[in-house]
């Protein structure tokens, strides 16, 4: 049988009678009652594995850190507050950074929705004090604090004392541009890099206290983005690895549900 697949394969057809299940290190076929017994066994196994992970906090990194090279530039946030980038937003904190501009009609609206969701979900995991979200403008000459406030209102981003702080910040163009390059948020091709409409749609995030940093594309699967961020920024083994040790039958089901809907 020969088949040709276009580069974006079309929908696949799943029938319930061929539901594949992962778990217990075995490949199991779903046949009615067997599936719910196996599911219970899976859930039990997952509980045991998660419980085996310690909740002892990791110790802070006291010698050289990635953030040592971050400049401590002056920023003004949407409330008109003066902030120092490193001292106020980075040092010993967990932080999620994104570059944007209010006039962006490309990736920024999508990024904003993703970050809104992350603010809520990661806030529940990390608490609202240690984690901060920072949106830095690519167009400080346009994006004054007032413009930032207007943008936030349109996007539905609010100051909310029950959630981690989300700071929209502007400042000096040269300093913000140098910071952007320092953070690795640039394209090696100077033409692409100079084109704001092609700016990176990535989240740069890390736990400064534990010196763990990464950057990931906003467009990836949300649940996996979230669990990767928890893994990178996590403060104890259970926080970091709970999602990593679970046999993911529920994730498979979610994927199947989303395919069935489309």
């Amino acid at each position, binding site marked *: 049988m020969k088949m040709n697949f276009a580069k974006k394969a079309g929908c696949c057809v799943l029938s319930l009678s061929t539901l594949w299940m*992962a778990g217990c290190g075995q490949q199991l076929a779903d046949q009615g009652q067997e599936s719910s017994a196996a599911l219970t066994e899976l859930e039990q196994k997952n509980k045991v594995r998660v419980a085996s992970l310690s909740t002892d906090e990791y110790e802070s990194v*006291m010698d050289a850190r990635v953030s*040592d090279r971050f400049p401590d530039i002056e920023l003004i946030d949407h409330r008109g507050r003066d902030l120092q980038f490193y001292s106020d937003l980075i040092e010993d904190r967990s932080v999620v950074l994104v570059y944007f501009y209010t006039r962006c009609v490309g990736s920024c609206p999508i990024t904003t929705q993703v970050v809104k969701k992350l603010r809520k979900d990661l806030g529940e995991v990390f608490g609202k004090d240690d984690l901060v979200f920072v949106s830095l403008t690519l167009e400080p000459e346009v994006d004054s604090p007032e413009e930032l406030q207007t943008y936030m209102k349109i996007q539905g981003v609010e100051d909310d004392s029950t959630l981690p702080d989300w700071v929209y910040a502007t400042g000096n163009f040269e300093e913000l541009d140098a910071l952007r390059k320092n953070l690795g*948020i640039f394209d090696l091709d100077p033409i692409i890099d100079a084109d704001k409409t092609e700016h990176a749609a990535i989240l740069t995030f890390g736990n400064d206290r534990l010196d763990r940093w990464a*950057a990931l594309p906003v467009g990836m699967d949300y649940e996996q983005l979230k669990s990767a961020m928890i893994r990178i920024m996590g403060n104890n083994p259970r926080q970091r*690895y709970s999602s990593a040790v679970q046999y*993911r039958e529920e994730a498979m089901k979610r994927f199947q549900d989303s395919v069935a809907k489309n």
Partner: protein
Amino acid sequence: MKKSISRRQAIGSISAAAAATTISASLGARRSRTRSRTGRGETSLDSGTRSQRLQAETVVDARTGTPIPFEKFTQEMPIPPVKQPLAVGKPNAPWVVGDCFHGVAPEYFTRTVAEDPTLKYPEKYPEKYYEMRIRDVVGEVIPGVQTPCCGYDGIVPGPTFKSKGLEPIIVRTWNDTHYECSMHLHGGHNPSHGDGYPNFYILPGQARDYYYTNTIPYHHGVPDVGEAPSTMWYHDHGMDVTAHTCVLGMAGFHIQIDDFEQGLIDRNILPSDPYDIPIMIGDKRFNSDGTIWFDPLDHNGYLGDVYCVNGKAHPYFRVQRRKYRFRFLNASNARHIELRLSDGRPFVGIANDSWLLPHAIERDSILMSPAKRADVVIDFSKVDANELYLENILLQGDGRGPDGKLLNRDTQIPGVGLVKFIIEGDPVPGDCSVDVGTELREHIPILESEIEATRVFEFHRRKGAWQINQEFYDEFKSNACPRVGSAERWILRNTAGGWWHPIHIHLESHQIQKIDGQAPPEEWAYKSDVCMLGPNTEAEIFMKFRTFTGPFVFHCHNLEHEDMRMMFVFDPIKDGPKSNQPLSAYYP
């Protein structure tokens, strides 16, 4: 938010190596390059000054390089020790196989071929049991400098596994580091649980039992001896941390010698130990305090300016006047290299990636992307001089890739000296016979008539990240589900502008049919496991998917791109070919 004395104030201002550094005047000026566009690179540099320059020069780039001056070719190149088993013979394991946090592959207990359960994996020799611990270690890479590294069994490179063909082994691997690791045996034909799927971790403090079958797939009911690998390597593959763990030293060799290759050695055709030597080449950059420089926010591709060969910076190696087999491995994160001998003499090429070629060929230079291997024979009895340098002649300025195009690269001759061979003694009599044209391992080409599906994978860069078919890696979705036991045609198309992407596909070899519509160079015309894509390159490969169901991954082997999710999943299943299915199994 803690706000007492700032930590930065407490420990003083540390400028990372990104800042400009001053270089001692004794190092001499930075080497000027002569560019050639012929791909093979011919220049007219004066050879009289060449050896002086190679000897005296360190590799410091005044702007962004390693600020530690040192003299090259003053350390002996080590040969990693061979890993010894704890026990031999089933069921004589020193522990209960699978009795650890991450367990063992279910296939360990069944050993039936996925596409034909009436068949069992070909096996011949008793099972062996190994235990390995991934540890932090401080070692000397640059002479006189202590460098914290991370290595398998606390050494860099890790120990060399030597397996016989058809000799199953279990490697219980403990993670004593603080990184979440996942070990991948690159070139191996193994079940999914222990194949290094990025999310199948060995969590810190835990162990996973890696079942390495050392078996070969079936071809029409008969074991496919053409598939038996030679030079494989193992390295970390943990999601998000691979670039960091690999540059810290998590890599080692796994050499398989099946009965057929042992026969070539016993009949004195191929060199035997101790003249069969693995050589791992990887570039690194160091900070002034000797630590390895690494930037987790740089996703273009790590480039170093110090070449580490078997764990030592620019070493020397004493050889006799006889033939040596060198198993070269480019273990760099992102640097492509092209190897050449300093007097221009060609290599005798005997293997590409994990497989012996059907016959030995002459190679003027060896182009290697990250992760590629090339086995060569060098006959030092033909060298009159007492010194010969192994050089890298390929120019690469940043993580995008070398200057130029895949088959038309910018090179410099002389290149950067990697290893200085010190040649001693008279020609040794009774040497092995391998030479250009010597028959090696038969190659069974995959036929057009066997192809059951064609897939196209486009690699592109968008908005600061890389995608495959406009998607990112989804660890729960099998993008491609071939029918297990079948063959497929995959078109790999690099549309990512100026970026080079070496594409590695797990599980089996692939056979490159065309590169940009032409037949590939002879060294790549048989079996490969890394398909090099230069700017705008399109490659057509045939590949079989045998013995095991998935999931497995394929990805760009620029480790920074890989960590940024430039990766896809394939999952051979019984009722393929399909696309975009849930994974058939998951082994956290």
